Every structure is written in C-alpha cells, then in structure tokens.
C-alpha cells in the first residue's frame, strides 16, 4: 500500500460512482532472462537476453475490504515477475489466493486484475513512445 513517487507508470481504474477506485504504481527494471526462458529463446539474438520485470509495485484503493485485499494480493503476486508473466495473472488466481471470496465480491478481484493489466499497458505505451 502506498505511492511510488518516481513511478515508471501508474493507472487508475474504477470510478467513485461505483464505489471502488484502484490506483497502481510500478517501477520496471531489466534483468537477464531467467534460465528456463533462456532455453526456450535460444535462437533469439542477444538483445532479447534481457527481460523487463516489476521491481516495485504499490497501490491505493478506495473501496470495501475485499477491494483493498484484492489489490494487496494482486500486487504481491506480480512483484518481481516479468511483465509477460505479470500479464498472465487472472482474477480467478487472485480470488483463489484470498480464500473464499463471495460471488458478490468477484468484481473486486476482476478490478485488481484489470489494474495490473492497465498499469503494464500504460508502461509499455510510454516506453514505446519514447523509443
């Protein structure tokens, strides 16, 4: 929970009309491809030997307990993961990690998934523009 002041990207989803608003902040860094992925991408050239990963991620949430917990779990799940891996996070996974989420609160885990996707998308758009 909190703010990253020099974040590489941020994203806000939801709106106060519906009662839930989440804001995500990420710091992205590069590291050598993990061993497993290296095997897969053997044929690729040297440039792709590095992958981008989520070095730090923080959130702020206006919402119910389930919304706050969903954001917290989602950020924990993707921290340290490559962007490609982080994009694979699903709302089901978030809900599963929280234990039993009642049906009326499913939208909270969906919102958290969207938050992660959106902040990565914002980062990639910004990066591509700068290139």
């Amino acid at each position: 929970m909190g703010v990253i002041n020099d974040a590489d990207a941020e994203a806000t989803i939801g709106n106060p009309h519906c009662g839930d608003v989440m804001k995500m902040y990420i710091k992205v860094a590069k590291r050598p491809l993990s061993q497993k992925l290296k095997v897969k991408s053997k044929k690729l050239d040297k440039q792709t030997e590095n992958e981008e990963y989520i070095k730090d991620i923080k959130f702020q949430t206006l919402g119910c307990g389930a919304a706050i917990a969903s954001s917290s779990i989602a950020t924990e799940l993707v921290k340290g993961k490559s962007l490609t891996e982080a994009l694979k996070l699903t709302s089901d996974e978030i809900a599963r990690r929280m234990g039993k989420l009642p049906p009326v609160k499913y939208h909270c885990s969906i919102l958290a998934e969207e938050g992660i996707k959106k902040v990565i998308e914002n980062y990639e758009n910004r990066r591509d523009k700068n290139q």
Partner: protein
Amino acid sequence: MKRIYLDNAATTPVKPEVFEAMKPYFSRDFGNASSIHSDGQQARAAVEQARHEIVEVLNCKDSEVVFTSGGSESDNLAIRGIVESAVGTRRLALGGWQKNPQTADQLPHVITSAFEHHAVLKTVQMLEKSGEIKATYVKPDKEGLIAAEDVKAAIRENTVLVSIMYVNNEIGTIQSIREIGKMLEKLNSARSEASTGRRIYFHCDAIQAAEYLNLDTKYLHVDLMTLSAHKIFGPKGIGLLFMKSGVKITPQITGGEQEWRLRSGTENVAGIVGFAKAMEIIQNAKCKIRNYNSKTEKLRDKLIDGILDRIPKSRLNGSRERRSPANVNVSFFGAEGESILINLDLAGISASSGSACTSGALEPSHVLEAIGVKPEWSHGSVRFSLSPETKEKEIDYLLEELPKIIEKLRKMSPIK
C-alpha cells in the same frame, strides 16, 4: 473489552424482563391458542391479554390489531391486501369477475415515497411491474422530508392507498404522518359526500418510531400501521399490523383463519407476550421519566457535533431538526462505508452502512440517492443507531476511534 453496539435500528437485544415474560410459553404453557382444552385456553388468554396491553398504546380496539411474523409481513399484508381488495371491489362493480376487467387508467393507484423501506418499496414496485397497479413514488426533499402537498398532488381518482413511513430507517428523518393523515381524511370525506373516487387508505410503517414517538393511531389519523418487536428490545419474528375497523383487506396467508380471519397460522404465543412486555416497558419508562427521549437526543447531538468537528470532509445526511433521537447518518468523502465498518468492528464497535454492500447489492443507498446525495459521498456513509441504553462513554470512545479510522482509509485512497 466490552463491545459497543450502535446498530439498534437493525435490531436490539431482548431485555431480560421480556425474556422472563416469554419463558413460560415454550415448554410449560405450550398450548395452541385455538384449542378448546385448558392448555389452549391458557395460551388464548395470554395472547388476548398481550393484545389488550398493546392496543392501549395504539389507542384502538382489540379487533384492530393483527399479529404477524414481523415488519415485512405486515407491510406486505397492508399493501397487497388493500390492492387485492380494491381489485375485487372494482370487479364486482363491473358486474362480476372478468379476466382482465381493467384498462390502465382503471388500475388501482398506490402512492408511496421514493425512500421507503424495501419491504414497502419492492412490494409496490413488484405490483406495478406485474401490471396490477399504477404507482407514484413521492420524492423527499434534500432534508429527507416528504411534503404533505406532494402526496396530495400525486392523488388520482383511482388512488386506493398511500404508504409513508414514520421514521426513515437509514437517515432517521421524521415524517409528518399526522398532517398527511388529516389531509387524506378530509379528502376522503369530500369524496364520499360527492360520491366520487375511491376511499384512500393510509398505511404507515412505524417500525423505527416505536421507541420514541407517539403511536396513537387516532392522533396520527392512520388506517393501517406496521410495528415490529425486535426493534424495541422484544423478540424477532413477531410484528403487527394495525387495521382500523372497516378497512377492507384480503388476507395473504390463508388457512386456519386466526387473527380475525386476516392472518392464518398458529399464534406465536411467546413472541406476542414478549412484544407486549417490550411495549409495556417503554410505556412505564415514559411515565417515570419526564422527557424519555432527551437522554438519547443529547448523546446523538454529541456524536453528530463530535464527528463534524473532528473529521474534515464529513457531512450529516438528513434533517438535523426532524430526526429520530437515535439516528446518526454521516458520510465521509474518500473512505468507503464497508471498510469503515470493518475497521469499527475491529475496534469493538458495531454500526451499519446505509450504503453499498450491506445487502450484497452494490448500488448506493436508494435513500441517500433520493435525497440527492452524490455517489462519491453516499458510498462513504455510516449509520450509528443509538438506544436509551447507550452510554456517554461509548460515544466518547467512538469519537476517539472514528477519526483515526477515517484518516487511515483516506491515506489508502487514491481519491482525496
């Protein structure tokens, strides 16, 4: 640590004296009040004595009180019963039963308020949706008050029922029931003299008023009135519908024809006895204490002032002057109601959120919406409901904890 209960509008604990009064009617005096034998007669006597105690408060006849399973059933009986009875009358007038005897403008018309309790609102909406009635939902003003003129303006030739609550369950505003009742009475006598239009019945859901306000049905000029025991330190599962003699109503639960043939089902003897005892305790206290409401009112005002003083970007929902002594409904910008409740609960305080999530629904409160509170504010609303048992130190503790909770949640929020 002892928990602090500030959700008395949801339910109240059964008072020990009430529980004591009920106890014999479970295992010892267990008879069915409809039985001929002495076990049954004992139960009958208990039911009728309880009824007699209650009618003294309502200033009505014994035959005008029908016991039900609670507030929702009473509201349903009043609305559906009046509508069905009106349809029956119309059918007869048209010369016997026909399949669809009514064109749209002949349908019975019902008036209620936009911020009624769901037991009334959803019942009216359902009858409207299924094409049985036409309905008008009178809007309260920003203060949460219904104007008698607005009710009058909504009346049509086919209006059969007006249903307005006494005290709003979420924001605690007190409606001018007597004024509306008198207005309708005047209109009805003009109608009967001119032989035009129908008799308009006036139903009032008085559940949240029972502890503090006048329940004299003659003073209020109501034809039907709903009450429930568990909001006044009585048991759950028992309520009543007052029904003035001559009101034509179709029963909704048929069977053994108990309760003047209006509500079948074996009487809930222990519940009825407990209900009467709870009413009796309030009446006795009101006799002993000159101003029964003032203690609760003082604590309510302390809580309202304390919150508005200590917490920036907070507001009181609903009129401050015409307000139940027990109700405090406040909104906090940038903090969500359910999260506030969870944090209060962790601090040992029980309250409720008039807004989203309470019923599993995610829409903002229909009550706050009706009085024009914006969703950004209504999502952050909390209702504290006091009782005559509430202690000053409990309010002091709440006033210490609440600002910390709001500050913590606002730090988490992306919207300041």
